[in-house]
């Protein structure tokens, strides 16, 4: 029998349903593995052990009473940007050290209603700002495939936990690639839903018009189950869309007959790792073998996505992060005056990348600069969205890399923010357009580092990308590879 921690949601569900496995045993296996491995990987900021086992016991009781749900009793991890009532939620920032929210995020409420068991809170770049998890205020997470390398970011902890079998699945958040890029770098499935598909209530905001919560998993089918659990309208989030949630599992097929796949010519650019290009192109050929037709498409404003993102996201962040003032929660550095208290609290509480983005955003919104920066960026954002709209008139899904490189070395890009920002060059346009995207494992480079194939759909086209990703996954073995780790 395989190790319990290797099971996907669907595999574990089959055993749980048959009564051959209890949630308590499954959960304990994960807690034991976390105990062994996480000292080295540091995917978790907090493991809620006692409460976790209590939840597992309750799940077993529910199942014993006849409840049946694929998520009932499944141990999962949550990115620390999601509020959990009574459980410390720091967003990877010192400024929220010790903060225990008085409420739980809607997405987690929904997971708990379905019976998922919380293992703990995962590490992340501070306030989801970063692509390597090195910006965490609590230390870096290591990539399970090579512990000298980053897991990607900002949801690096969630990606690493799933890859290292320290959770069956996890939730993360994606503002410019923070699910898909670490999924790619850690060799797991990562899905960013369309903007408005999942409630943001309880997701600590980085850039409100771009943030979405999404799943990490070890199979596409698992991602489909997780998305089905967390998607849907929430009266507490006015930007969540009131559309029925489809049966995502029912959308999964093994072939891709009649599916039109577009390959954007602007996504195979200079600077892309040749191994990544080769592996992704091979994956696209595989889609063809599965029955899809492949054609080139153009997204002409692609090169503007990064500058547009780095105006809009920091602008929104500069306001979103204003509430961290040491007045109502979080540590306070008491100054002589109110202003000193603000400055010292924020000076001590925020890391350099967060400060950089607050300054960028404050500048972009300042009187006299607003039109030239923020407003202009919003106009170009519309053009980027129109690019996708036009492309999706011709094709059903767009295929491209999720990241221009495989996992890079810890420390390699920390002193070069621009180089770091380029890690998200293939992912952030989707957030600007509100589209959905998934990264699915599609190969390994010569250093045995995973590569992700990104499949992009139009807004609320999750069924299409899940179908394409699932068919690809079923035809390949990449997702079955696991990193070799020992305590």
């Amino acid at each position, binding site marked *: 029998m395989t190790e319990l921690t290797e099971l996907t949601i669907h595999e574990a569900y089959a055993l749980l349903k048959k009564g051959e496995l209890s949630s308590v045993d499954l959960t304990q296996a994960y807690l034991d593995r976390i105990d062994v491995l996480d000292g080295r990987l540091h995917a978790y900021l907090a493991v809620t052990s006692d409460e976790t086992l209590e939840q597992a016991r309750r799940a077993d009781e529910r199942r014993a009473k006849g409840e049946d749900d694929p998520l009932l009793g499944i141990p999962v991890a949550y990115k620390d940007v999601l509020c959990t009532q009574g459980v410390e939620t720091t967003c990877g920032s010192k400024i929220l050290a010790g903060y225990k929210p008085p409420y739980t995020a809607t997405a987690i409420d929904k997971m708990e209603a379905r019976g998922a068991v919380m293992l703990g809170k995962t590490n992340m770049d501070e306030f989801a700002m970063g692509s390597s998890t090195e910006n965490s205020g609590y230390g870096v997470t290591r990539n399970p495939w090579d512990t000298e390398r980053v897991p990607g970011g900002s949801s690096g902890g969630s990606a690493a936990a799933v890859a290292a079998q320290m959770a069956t699945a996890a939730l993360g958040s994606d503002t410019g690639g923070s699910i898909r890029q670490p999924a790619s770098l850690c060799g797991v499935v990562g899905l960013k839903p369309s903007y408005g598909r999942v409630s943001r209530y309880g997701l600590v905001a980085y850039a409100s018009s771009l943030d979405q919560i999404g799943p990490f998993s070890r199979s596409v089918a698992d991602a489909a189950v997780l998305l089905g659990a967390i998607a849907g309208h929430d009266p507490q989030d*006015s*930007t969540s869309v009131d559309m029925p949630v489809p049966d995502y599992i029912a959308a999964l097929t093994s072939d891709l007959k009649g599916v039109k796949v577009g390959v954007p010519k602007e996504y195979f650019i200079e600077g892309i790792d040749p191994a990544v290009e080769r592996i992704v192109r091979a994956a696209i050929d595989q889609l063809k073998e599965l029955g899809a037709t492949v054609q080139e498409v153009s997204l002409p404003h692609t090169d503007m996505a990064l500058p547009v993102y780095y105006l809009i996201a920091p602008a929104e962040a500069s306001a979103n992060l204003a509430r961290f*003032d040491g007045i109502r929660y979080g540590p306070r550095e008491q100054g002589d005056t109110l202003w000193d208290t603000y400055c010292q609290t924020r000076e001590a509480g925020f890391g350099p990348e967060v400060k950089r983005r607050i300054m960028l955003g404050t500048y972009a919104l300042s009187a006299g600069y607003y039109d030239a920066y923020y407003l202009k960026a919003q106009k170009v954002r519309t053009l980027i969205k129109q690019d996708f709209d036009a492309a999706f008139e011709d094709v059903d899904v767009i295929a491209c890399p999720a990241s221009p490189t495989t996992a890079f070395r810890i420390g390699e890009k920390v002193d070069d923010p621009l180089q770091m920002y380029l890690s998200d060059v293939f992912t952030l346009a989707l957030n600007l357009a509100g589209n959905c995207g998934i990264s699915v494992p599609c190969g390994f480079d010569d250093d045995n580092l995973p590569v992700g194939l990104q499949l992009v759909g139009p807004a609320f086209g999750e069924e299409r990308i899940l179908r394409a990703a699932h068919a690809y996954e079923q035809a390949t073995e990449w997702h079955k590879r696991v990193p070799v780790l020992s305590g």
Partner: protein
Amino acid sequence: MTQYEPVIGLEVHAEMLTESKMFCACPVVDSTEAPPNTTVCPVCTAQPGVLPVINRQAVEYGIKVGLALNCTINEFNQFARKSYFYPDLPKGYQISQYEHPLASNGWLDIDVDDETRRIGITRAHLEEDTGKNIHMGSSSLVDLNRAGVPLLEIVSEPDMRSVEEVEAYARKLRAILVYLGVNHGDMSKGVLRFEANISVRPTGSDEMNTRTEIKNLNSIRSLVRASQYEIARQIKLVESGGQVIQQTMGFNEESGKTTVQRSKEYADDYRYFPEPDLPPLNIDRAWVAAIEKTLPELPDAKRERFIDELGLSVQDAGVLVADKATAEYFEAALKADVDAKTVANWVTGELFRLMNAAGVEIEQVKVTPEALVDLIKLVEAETINNNTAKEVLEAMFETGHSAGEIVKEQGLAQISDSSALEAIIEQVLEANPEPVEKYLGGKEGLFGWLVGQVMKETRGQANATVVNQIMRERLEGMRKA
């Protein structure tokens, strides 16, 4: 020497007294009385990760005010973030409206010195109130009960040219908000706050000079005092060759002076941008039309009706409609079959006199409209005369007893019975032979004195008409005899 006139525009912040706050489900309470931080939730305390949801009732209230102020209700509404740091502002930004307000381009007519002036309304937009900082010695505490209470900011054009106009505008606007039921108008509770933008210029000129802005005026009295002071200050400054600088001022209630809070070069940059947590709000025309149908009769319309249909004087009608509760009191009295002018006289005369003397508002008056009508009926039935009625009203005002009870208790009923009065008149004539003699000798003026003696004997309760008649008959009879 040059004469100067002020140019004044007002910004009025009116709390919308909805059931819940602007963006969360917390109740709107009297923030001067509720224990601190008892009506708060994750949203209005700005916990990380929370999101705002627009309160439909607040939008409805805002639309009501916009319509009452003859504004266009804009179909496309957008909320915006106004960023600044202060402990009473939990998110570090206030959700307000900036480029796309709820209502714009309206007007309000005011009456000053028997002249009607039309004051333009630039816009009215929805936003959220802040909490309150409470300073205690070297430390400060924050109460967030008020944080998130819906506010409507009503901005006028700089159309006012005197402090009298400012006061009339403020009072009229307050009355309209109370009529609409969106604000109770009690400024001691902080539900209505004013900011005045003031500049001065030579009378008759149409130039717009540098203005100052006086913030945080919490009563109409402060608004008037601060405006008076600031106008005089600016005129004096200009006359002495100085220049007004664009500044934000505060008003010191004790000294009665305005003081500089900050100059333009230190002005906040609020970094407004569209609130990404709230999609644009499209206001359905049919909804506006439905709201329009529910608008109550407003002061101007009511005044016209009082004049045209009830025959009240312009003066009485104006006084009665200026306050919603007074108008309601008056109209409640009219439900009985009673002369409207008589009721108006009693309310604006005796009742107001008693209220002023006691320093109470009409809501606290113990004399119900029905009780006032009963009093008027007693006068009409000649059970009591007018002077006695005033005494009875005073007793009613103090005790809350009915007119009938008081008349009975104090034996104040008017004596109209001829036989009873004849006996008293007989006594008076017998007791005063000399004046009677003189009257009969031609001193006609003594008639009134003799009647007065009868009134004295009856403690004013005698029916004067009846006394006059009998007295004259008796004296004429004596003359003949």
